[in-house]
């Protein structure tokens, strides 16, 4: 009695836990079934006792039910315990998964226990499906995704690199990332990357140029993140590598184009410069010739001191021009250097003043201290002379041109090109009193061969060259103008050096 009470309690607990049980005959026909069993299988109460075997009572196809029948007979015929999964199809087409146990009790009785695990199975399957989807997406991404284990070996790699290199994924797994990402030890950049990866730090947009090995000539950006466990221990190290060789090639192409333009423009500038120089020198030499001839003809004339003084003045003026011209032409392949830009600025402005006709003045408004910036001195002179020439043309070679300099200035919103250096930036602005222009025209001024000057007066190459050179230093340009209000052309020169130059030891 006590034992049967206990059994009843246990069976009741089974029901409460949602674990169903039933008793069948050897053919599998239901003799009795617990409420939980009926609830799980959604069989109506009047289905018990059943005329057919329990495994034929769901909505599964006949083939499936036939297979179940064969298994059942094998098991029950052999007097063994069966354990396995039952995929139970409900009338509405929904599928449930039961963990089932069937054990012969006697020659005529079999006990069947069914535990509904549908939620778990569904969750597992959903996880599997989402993982599969994720893997597919990862494999199709146009970038390399790698997961390193705590030991530094690659635990996962998406299909990008293997596909690019024509290698199986297994060629990468369980190797160090340096073996894959970096071709050979000993190379400076490779070592920098290897050291960075060994520190297992988070890197953002770390540039990597590969110069040897199967990926030679490609440029990458690395993004890495350590993934830590609850105890702060390193579980995984995520490395994402983006191939931006195409962009890098494009940037190089742009740089080459800017240099070619600079060369072309130099020829035009040389013509203008030669003309201006000839004009200046002829104006100096002519009076000197006149007074020298007068003195030669009559060395004893009364005002010989005055005439000789004028000749001396002419020689001194010509000498000044000569020295400035040499300064302008100096230096070809100069390195970028952090330097005070004020001396170069004053040199160029003095040259412009020398060549300016009367009525055209230049005013410089520099800060008191040094204005250090990363620049190439010759290029800076060229850029500034270009801007001053443009300003002079814009106001028909008369009036005042203001040059404003700031040691550190925030970038404006209307930049044509984003600078490659991170800043801060020094500002040199050339402000003219010309006719000004509308926004559309202002934006076009940096396009090659665009010119607002009349035919034969401008090559349309000055400002593109300015843009090319300034962006070459990591800086950028901007223009502010409105019709009738003059124009301000500004160059923004980085005060610090971009990371890449430091790596190459350029700065």
């Amino acid at each position, binding site marked *: 009695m006590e034992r049967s009470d206990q059994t009843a309690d246990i069976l009741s607990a089974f029901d409460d836990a949602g674990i169903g049980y039933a008793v069948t005959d050897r053919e599998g026909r239901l003799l009795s079934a617990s409420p939980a069993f009926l609830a799980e299988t959604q069989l109506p109460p009047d289905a018990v006792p059943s005329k057919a075997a329990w495994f034929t009572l769901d909505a599964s196809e006949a083939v499936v039910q036939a297979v179940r029948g064969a298994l059942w007979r094998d098991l029950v015929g052999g007097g063994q315990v069966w354990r396995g999964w039952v995929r139970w199809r409900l009338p509405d087409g929904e599928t449930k998964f039961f963990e089932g146990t069937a054990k012969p009790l006697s020659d005529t009785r079999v006990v069947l226990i069914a535990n509904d695990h549908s939620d778990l199975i569904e969750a597992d399957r959903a996880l599997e499906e989402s993982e599969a989807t994720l893997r597919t997406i990862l494999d199709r991404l146009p970038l390399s995704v790698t997961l390193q284990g705590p030991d530094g070996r690659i635990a996962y790699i998406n299909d990008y690199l293997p596909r690019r290199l024509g290698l199986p994924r297994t060629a990468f797994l369980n190797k160090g990332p340096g073996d894959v990402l970096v071709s050979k030890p000993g190379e400076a950049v490779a070592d920098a990357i290897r050291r960075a990866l060994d520190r297992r730090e988070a890197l953002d947009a770390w540039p990597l140029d590969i110069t040897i090995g199967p990926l030679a000539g490609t440029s990458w950006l690395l993004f890495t993140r350590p993934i830590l466990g609850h105890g702060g221990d390193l579980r995984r190290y995520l490395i994402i590598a983006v191939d931006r060789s195409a962009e890098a090639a494009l940037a190089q192409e742009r740089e080459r184009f800017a240099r070619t333009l600079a060369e072309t423009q130099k020829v035009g500038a040389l*013509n*203008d*410069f*030669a*003309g*201006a*120089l*000839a*004009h*200046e*020198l*002829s*104006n*100096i*030499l*002519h*009076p*000197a*010739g*006149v*007074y020298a*001839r*007068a003195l030669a003809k009559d060395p004893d004339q009364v005002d010989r001191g005055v005439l000789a003084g*004028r000749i001396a*003045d*002419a020689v001194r003026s010509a000498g000044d021009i000569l020295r400035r011209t040499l300064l302008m032409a100096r230096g070809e392949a100069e390195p970028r250097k952090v330097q005070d830009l004020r001396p170069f600025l004053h040199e160029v402005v003095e040259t412009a003043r020398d060549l300016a*006709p*009367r*009525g*055209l003045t230049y005013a410089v408004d520099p800060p008191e201290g040094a204005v250090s910036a990363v620049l190439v001195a010759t290029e800076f002179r060229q850029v500034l002379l270009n801007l001053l020439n443009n300003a002079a043309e814009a106001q*028909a*070679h*008369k009036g005042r041109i203001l040059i404003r300099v700031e040691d550190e200035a925030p970038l404006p919103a209307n930049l044509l090109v984003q600078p490659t250096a991170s800043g801060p930036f020094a500002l040199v602005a050339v402000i003219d009193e010309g006719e000004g222009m509308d926004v559309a025209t202002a934006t076009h001024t940096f396009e090659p061969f665009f010119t607002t000057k009349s035919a*034969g*007066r401008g090559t349309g190459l000055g400002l593109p060259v300015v843009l090319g050179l300034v962006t070459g230093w990591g800086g950028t340009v901007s223009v502010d103008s409105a019709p009738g209000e003059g124009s301000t052309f500004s160059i923004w020169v980085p005060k610090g050096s971009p990371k890449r130059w430091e790596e190459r030891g350029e700065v």
Partner: protein
Amino acid sequence: MSAILVVDDDPAVGESVRFVLERAGYAATGASTVAAAREALMADDTALCILDVWMDGEDGLDFAAEVARSGAPFIVMSGGGPGRSLESVTAKADALGAVAVLYKPFEDEELLNAVRATLGKKSSEL
């Protein structure tokens, strides 16, 4: 008495040209801007105008055209300028009817020959 008007934006050049003319016995006046030259041209009886073609940001050749229209004979002086070849200056000056084109620095005799030729020619016409 009619005078020779010397127009150059560089005072040193203008002064030296007048120096040569005056020592040769001519009366000469000077102007260093196009505006002043225009005024002098209208007010005075200018026998001859000697002008520079790169002045004060204005194209001296444009002013040369004005002088040509006024009927006064003129001599063009040039020392080059931004984006301008000496050949193109000569061609334009000839087209406008310049008596002579002188390239600075020029000899005193070149100037005086051109002046003598012009003023001599002009007096024979009277």
